[in-house]
């Protein structure tokens, strides 16, 4: 059951007025322009024990993604494909609003947005992960760990997921006599990423559209739109969030802005993926 | 009044409007909480019936949650007894409070025991709303003519729509049922009805008649229909008992 949140922090009215009057002159509380994103910092291969990982900061927001590749059984309707599983945890240390316990609806929503963008674009060659089609396949577990919530968790998670998957190595599994897959020394290769996909979120506050919203901007926004893109500009997913509404014109403008932001993310990611693994 | 300040009306007398229906444009006078404004346009927020009078609009919702208003007469059910007040279910999203000072008990006598003896959990009461602003629970009073604990007869609940029609448009239906069955019928603002004063058999018959008209198309039932119905049922009963 989804319940209207009653624990969100109260943004003082005067603060909201300030945000709006700043937007009117093309500025934001942290000095950014409406279309600017915060500083992005990407550290690939942050967790040595994972098969792929990335730590991403967007401003004060911190998201860590760890990937593990493990044996599993294929879906009956897709017997000759491996599986990508995207999971998200809003761990309590990340925000006073996060509670221990099973994932809440926001975590599920985030995971599903990221999952859909990769799944629908077939960004990962899942066929390559079928060790024994119909019997044994490899499952790519992509765990998103939110470490500090300062807004725009979706974009940070999308960047971290793309970088982690792009740097994921496939462990060397061999079938033993009993038919089990056993992990051997070393790696068999790297995960094949056929397409890069990213998600960019735009918030509508009053009549203004802002890129990479902060937590406070999220609370005062009427609605947000997350749009996923591949590098050629194809839309690969979309999600309107928040309890407000948008007009057709708003959506066009927000998709335009999301594409501009996506290109910035792609360029940050290319630089990061190009770096040698952290030793 | 000049021409420009006159509203442009998009509805006629007794039109049914739905949420999102445009009612008027311009400057409109309305006291209805079910009419909302965007720019200079006025829209309905509920399924309701409009009444137009001299460019003023009233909107009666078909179904609605009972929101108490001062001077409403309500039939309540005692759900809890506190140290100085009773909690009263009044068929509303808001639980009513009956403070001891609004009864014949003296404040100084107030203990849970004396309160319980006076009105216990499960008792039904006829009360008046004296204050409500949606932020605090509605305050009820038992001070006034006819108010007090219900000790005889029966209480039923009907739909909010039927209640408003019986209260404001078709009082004659209630009067007819009361007359034909020899009972006293009180329709509370909170869609609860108290039937009393008659023989138990006749009270039951009044309830049956009230339930018969509690349908969305109650207007298709005329006074003569209801008279016929009651007389028919009466005859059946006399036969059975005779």
């Amino acid at each position, binding site marked *: 059951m989804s319940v209207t949140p009653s624990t969100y922090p109260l943004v003082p009215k005067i603060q909201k007025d300030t945000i709006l009057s700043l937007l009117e002159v093309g500025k934001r509380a942290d000095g950014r322009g409406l279309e600017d994103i915060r500083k992005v910092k990407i550290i690939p291969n942050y967790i040595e024990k994972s098969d792929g990982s990335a730590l991403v900061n967007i401003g004060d927001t911190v998201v860590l993604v760890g990937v593990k590749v493990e044996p599993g059984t294929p879906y009956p309707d897709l017997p000759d494909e491996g599986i990508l599983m995207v999971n998200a945890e809003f761990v309590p240390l990340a925000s006073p609003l996060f509670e221990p316990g099973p994932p809440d609806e926001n975590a599920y929503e985030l995971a599903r947005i990221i999952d859909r963008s990769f799944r629908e674009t077939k960004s990962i060659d899942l066929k390559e992960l079928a060790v024994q089609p119909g019997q044994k396949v490899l499952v790519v577990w992509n765990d998103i760990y939110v470490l500090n919530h300062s807004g725009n968790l979706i974009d940070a998670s999308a960047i971290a997921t793309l970088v982690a998957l792009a740097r994921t190595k496939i462990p060397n599994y061999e079938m033993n006599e009993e038919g089990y897959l056993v992990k051997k020394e070393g790696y068999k290769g790297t995960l094949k990423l056929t397409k890069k996909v990213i998600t960019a979120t735009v918030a509508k506050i009053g009549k203004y559209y802002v890129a990479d919203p902060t937590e406070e901007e999220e609370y005062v926004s009427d609605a947000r739109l997350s749009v996923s893109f591949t590098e050629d500009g194809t839309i690969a997913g979309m999600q309107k969030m928040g309890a407000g509404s948008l007009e057709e014109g708003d959506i066009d403008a927000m998709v335009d802005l999301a594409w501009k932001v996506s290109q910035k993310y792609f360029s940050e990611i290319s630089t990061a993926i190009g770096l040698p693994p952290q030793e | 009044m000049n021409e420009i300040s006159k509203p442009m009306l998009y509805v006629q007398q007794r039109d049914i409007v739905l949420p999102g229906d445009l009612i008027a444009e311009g400057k409109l006078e309305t006291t209805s909480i079910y009419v909302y404004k965007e720019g200079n346009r006025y829209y309905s927020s*509920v399924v309701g019936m409009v009444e137009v009078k001299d460019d003023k609009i009233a909107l009666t919702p078909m179904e609605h949650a009972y929101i108490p208003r001062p001077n409403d007469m309500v039939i309540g059910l005692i759900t809890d007894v506190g140290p100085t007040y009773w909690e009263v279910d009044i068929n509303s999203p808001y639980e009513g409070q009956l403070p001891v000072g609004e009864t014949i008990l003296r404040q100084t006598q107030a203990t849970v025991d004396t309160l319980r003896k006076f009105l216990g959990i499960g008792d039904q009461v006829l009360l008046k709303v004296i204050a409500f602003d949606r932020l605090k629970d509605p305050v009820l009073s038992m001070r006034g003519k006819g108010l007090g604990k219900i000790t005889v007869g029966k209480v039923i609940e009907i739909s909010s729509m039927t209640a408003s029609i019986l209260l404001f448009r078709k009082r004659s239906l209630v009067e007819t049922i009361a007359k034909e069955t020899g009972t006293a019928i009180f329709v509370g603002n909170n869609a609860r009805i108290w039937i009393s004063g008659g023989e138990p058999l006749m009270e039951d018959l009044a309830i049956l008649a009230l339930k018969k008209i509690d349908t969305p198309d109650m207007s298709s039932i005329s006074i003569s229909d209801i008279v016929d119905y009651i007389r028919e049922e009466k005859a059946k009963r006399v036969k059975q008992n005779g």
Partner: protein
Amino acid sequence: MGKTGLKLIDENGIRIDGRKPDQLRPISMDVGVLKNAQGSALVSYGKTTVLAAVYGPREALPRHMTLPDRAILRVRYHMAPFSTTERKSPAPTRREVELSKVIRESLEASVFTELYPRTTIDIFIEVLQADGGTRTTSLTAASMALADAGIPMKDLIAGVAVGKVNGKLVLDINEAEDSGGEADMPVAMMPNLGKIVLLQLNGTLTRDEFKEAMKMSIKAIKEIYLIQKQTLRDKYAKMTEEEKEE
């Protein structure tokens, strides 16, 4: 060919269920179908059938979960175990959790929650049969149940899903088109106000296709809206007809 290699639309642009690309399935609606609920609605788009019920506004328990200045909405989107081809476990899935959230947020854009502080409005949605477009059918039904319950709101909400099969945009997709197609884009709006309250896209579309899909869905939503209004009017019209004669 779709994902599963199925041919979902023929040379003449006719879909597997015989519809044209921009054609809705037969739609049926009924309100006030449940006695206990304050408001209810049963809505079908083709074989997709959804029952929605509204309880409240009512006292919210526990009290600390209430808001001092408005009502809270509690929404459950749930699929009946027998609604799908293979039995679905009644336990809520990740998908149902997400859909409950997006449906709640959509409804919150329309309901005047500030009229009932400290209360809760419960909206329970049961998908009785799923054949594509269940979330948009759910929103259409939930909005009518709210209207039937007399909950004040800005406008009714109507929704529809546009999909892409074999490279072509198609309206109001069924399950085969959803699972075999390249995209599923559910849209819901308050048609009289032109406000979009739900927008999701699962799949890929070019910018031009996206714009075209928006146009298709908005046009269809306006048709569905007319059926919604007629259904609500029919329930109450009889009453006023007779009143006018007096």
